[in-house]
C-alpha cells in the first residue's frame, strides 16, 4: 500500500492505495468523486519529490502527495 496525501485546499483525509505505479493511483483517484475534479490541476510528488510520469514506480510505504494550484506571497 502507498499513502496518498491531499495538500492545501483539498479537504480530504489521506488514503491507503494498492499501487505499483502512479498509474494505479490515478485509476483509484479517478473513481473517487471527492478528488476527481482536482486531478487535472494537481502536481504530484512521490516521497516529497515532484514527478511527471504515470510510469513512476511505487513501493509499499511510499508517500504520494497531490499539490493543487499554488499562490504564495
Amino acid at each position, binding site marked *: 500500500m502507498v499513502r496518498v496525501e491531499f*495538500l492545501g*485546499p483539498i479537504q480530504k483525509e489521506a488514503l491507503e492505495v494498492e499501487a505499483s505505479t502512479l498509474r494505479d493511483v*490515478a485509476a483509484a483517484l479517478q473513481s473517487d468523486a471527492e478528488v476527481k475534479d482536482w486531478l487535472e490541476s494537481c502536481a504530484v510528488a512521490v516521497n516529497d519529490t515532484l514527478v511527471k510520469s504515470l510510469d513512476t514506480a511505487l513501493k509499499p510505504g511510499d508517500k504520494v502527495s497531490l499539490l493543487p*494550484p499554488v*499562490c504564495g506571497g
Partner: protein
Amino acid sequence: MLELFDGPVPTEELLVRWYQEEAGSNYGAYIPFIGTIRDEDGISGLSFDIYEPILESWFDAWQEKATEAGAILKMAHSRGDVPLHTSSYVAAVFSPKRKVALKMINDFVEDFKASAPIWKYDLRDGKRLYAADRSTPISGSGILGE
C-alpha cells in the same frame, strides 16, 4: 536561509538582521522584495498553508543557483492568518554587483509564485476561502487526470 513565521513576517526586524548578517560579506548589493497584504475585495487578510518539505527543496535548488552566481538568497514567509497592511513574504538577494541581484530577485519571485508549494486563502466574512482564481498549477500538473 528560509524562515517561516506563524502570522505576519516581522519585516523591519528581518531586513535589519539580514543586513547585519551580511555586513562583512563584501556584497555590493542587497535587494529585498516585500509583499504586503492590500485592502481589496472586502478581505480582512490572507491566510496560508505551506508544504514545508517541498518548499525547502525548492529553496535549496535556488540557493545553489544563487551560489553559482556569487550571490545568496534569503526568504521569509507566513503560515496561517496575516492581517491587512502587514507582510506575508520577504525575499532578498545579496550579490557582489547589482545587475545579478536585480535579475535574480525577479526570476526568484516569479518562480516562487509559479512553483512554491504555498496555498493562499482570502479571509472574508469569517470564512477562509481558497484563492483558486489567483493560483497557478505547478509545472507538470494534471498527470493523474490523464
